[in-house]
């Protein structure tokens, strides 16, 4: 007879997923208090952290603040910088030799708040002459200018322009590990898991390790990466591949040092489209993380490395590229019995739009909020968790696919295949059909935990020059004057911010030196 309460949580695997989950659970479940659960993290001393995910969402600010991390200390320890969005270069059409074009997907849309008053239909009518990203958000311009999202006097975790982070994922895992073990009463065991032991009902009883014996628990979190030792191998939950929709299954990554210590740091991810994938360029404090993520069905590794080196230029000389295989898809179930998978063990789409770490936070938050202390309650929470995360991953896949499937690029089979209807999920096709005649509105995003919402879709659709023909419906948009006023307000805010904000590099250097004020 299994004991009726769940008191011991064992997280197998460290890394970003393991330690972030540990911190969120420990804080929300008040670990260390009388009667609280106990959390143990088993991390292999031998398996290196994959550490691809170097970009977060703004939710990370709330997460770190709520688990009691000092923002300045975190940034200094993890080579972190401020991320204000992404710039998509050469996605819209095939660039002529030497030509580039781009659009921004910024994290804040000042005054835009398309939920109250959608500027898109007015922009479509030409009320503003600027490109969509610059017309509706000051932040696109702030990114272009390389300015910071806040000032040194702005309180920690507060923002003048919404922001997330770029950081060194290996250092982040180490930082969170220290925080969890020193401040959040999380138990840490360094050992390799060799075998998973199950009860007769299938639930996990414990794991056998090489150097720490058998570790039992009541509830298990599988953070073992794409191996999915617990949920995949032991419980046999299958994998739903999405390689018919998303093709980028391989990445080549490089660490490119700055030429000088005062080199400007980009304050957004630069995602540049190429013949069989795209390159990311992420500015950390001391180096750039640059990589090419591509479809192995459309490109050889040699050709991919050539593309990456060409893209980086002279600075790539003498640097080595690290190859990473990506398993695109998600588990048929994320939670089964007393085991939940979080991180790459659960799902992975591809690095575009940095959804990986965000979905770790989302999963850990839901697990913490809904954690069943009674074994009898497991089934109900399992069902809810599986339903919501299947929906969230499907919606994330739709949004990622959007970046590809509305492109005019047809220069390679890769782009032709990406734009073929057969590769576009039905749910996305339906929406796109509607949006050809109506600008997206808030009712298109009515799920409470929608990972990507209206503003994000608008930035990508109209950044990609998606054609919404509203000529039949102009009478529905009579507020031209108000739109004009809002566009002018945005221009004024942009000018004001330009005067006030320091450069990104200047602020980062100061944050590392002085930290950020608590209030």
């Amino acid at each position, binding site marked *: 007879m299994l004991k009726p309460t769940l008191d011991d949580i064992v997280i197998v695997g460290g890394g970003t997923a393991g330690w972030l989950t540990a911190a969120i659970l420990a804080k929300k479940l008040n670990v260390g208090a009388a009667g609280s659960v106990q959390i143990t993290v088993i991390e292999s001393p031998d398996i290196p952290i994959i550490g691809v995910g170097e970009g977060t969402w703004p939710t990370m600010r709330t997460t770190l603040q709520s688990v009691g991390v000092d923002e300045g200390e975190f940034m200094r320890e993890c080579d972190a910088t401020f991320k204000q969005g992404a710039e998509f270069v050469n996605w819209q059409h095939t660039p002529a030799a030497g030509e580039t074009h781009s659009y921004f997907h910024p994290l804040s849309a000042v005054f835009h708040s398309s939920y109250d008053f959608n500027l898109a239909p007015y922009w479509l009518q030409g009320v503003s002459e600027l490109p969509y990203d610059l017309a509706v958000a000051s932040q696109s311009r702030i990114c272009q200018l390389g300015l910071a999202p806040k000032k*040194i006097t702005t309180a920690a975790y507060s923002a003048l322009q919404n922001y997330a982070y770029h950081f060194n994922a290996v250092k982040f895992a180490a930082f969170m590990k220290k925080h969890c073990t020193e401040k959040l009463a999380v138990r840490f065991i360094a050992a390799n898991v060799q075998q998973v032991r199950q009860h007769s009902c299938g639930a996990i009883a414990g794991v056998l390790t090489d150097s720490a014996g058998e570790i039992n628990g009541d509830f298990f979190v599988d953070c073992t990466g794409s191996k999915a030792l617990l949920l995949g191998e032991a419980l046999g939950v299958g994998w739903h591949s999405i390689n018919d929709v998303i093709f980028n299954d391989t990445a080549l990554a490089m660490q490119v040092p700055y030429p000088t210590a005062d080199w400007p740091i980009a304050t957004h991810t630069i995602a540049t489209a190429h013949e069989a994938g795209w390159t990311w360029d992420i500015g950390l404090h001391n180096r750039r993380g640059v990589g090419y993520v591509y479809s192995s069905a459309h490109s050889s590794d040699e050709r991919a490395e050539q593309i990456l080196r060409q893209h980086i230029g002279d600075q790539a000389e003498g640097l080595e590229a690290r190859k990473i295989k990506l398993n695109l898809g998600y588990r048929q179930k994320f939670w089964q019995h007393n085991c939940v998978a979080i991180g790459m063990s659960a799902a992975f789409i591809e690095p575009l739009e940095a959804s990986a770490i965000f979905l770790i936070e989302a999963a850990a938050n839901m697990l913490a909020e809904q954690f069943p202390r009674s074994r009898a309650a497991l089934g109900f929470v399992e069902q809810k968790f599986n339903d919501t995360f299947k929906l969230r991953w499907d919606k994330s896949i739709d949004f990622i696919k959007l970046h590809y499937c509305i492109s005019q690029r047809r220069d390679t089979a890769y782009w032709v295949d990406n734009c073929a209807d057969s590769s576009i999920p039905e749910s996305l096709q339906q929406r796109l059909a509607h949006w050809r005649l109506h600008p997206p509105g808030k009712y298109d995003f009515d799920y409470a935990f929608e990972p990507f919402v209206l503003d994000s879709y608008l930035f990508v659709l109209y950044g990609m020059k998606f054609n919404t023909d509203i000529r039949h419906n102009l009478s529905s948009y009579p507020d031209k004057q108000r739109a004009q006023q809002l566009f002018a307000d945005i221009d004024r805010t942009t000018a004001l911010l330009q005067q006030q904000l320091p450069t990104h590099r200047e602020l980062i250097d*100061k944050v590392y*030196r002085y*930290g950020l004020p608590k*209030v």
Partner: protein
Amino acid sequence: MTNIVALDSQQHQHYKLSEDKLFSHTRTAHILPLAVTEFVAAAVSLPIVFVKDSTTGQFRACALTGLQPGQNLCWQESGWQAAYIPLAVRNYPLLALKPEAQSDDYIIAVDTGSELFNQQSGQALFAADKGTDYLQQRARSAINQAHGIGLTQQFINRLLALELLVARTLTLTPKGAEPYELTGMYGIDEQRLAQLTAEQWLSLRANNDLLAIHAVLMSMAQLPLLVARLA
């Protein structure tokens, strides 16, 4: 222009310091740095506020002397008007700095942009390559102030840890002009102070912070008097 340079017995051997009893260098200062060791004396004539240093974002304790940048209501042509004169004002143009954050020693520096520092009038600073008694005495006062600023930073850190600092906005309506808000000031959160646990309260007592905290709170009574100086 302010230009802070370390005093050097060779380079500055012919320099003198004169004194300005009117403290005219403060004529455009709306805030002046204050050390926690001065709070009790300052509280009877000046509001004590906390502001963030615009270059470092770090909190500093200050006496509020004006209601907008560039305005010192505690200074007139006849000189300094408030009963208390902050140490930093009295020590000017001298100040003591630590060469490194961890160092125990101070170096004495001077604002060479000040007319008080000159070769014509005042008290000599050096004689036969050594600091004069006058310089020694002024240097001691500057070190005293620097030490006080160090204690103030520790005091502020304890206030922050207990979440006792809160933003204060002052809405001002000058006669015949548009109302405006003086922002960027922080004060002590009285409500939060009342909610501290016994343990937290005792930690304040152990650090001898209670007197300083209450001095800050009582100094708020000087705000309306400062506003009245506008007339």
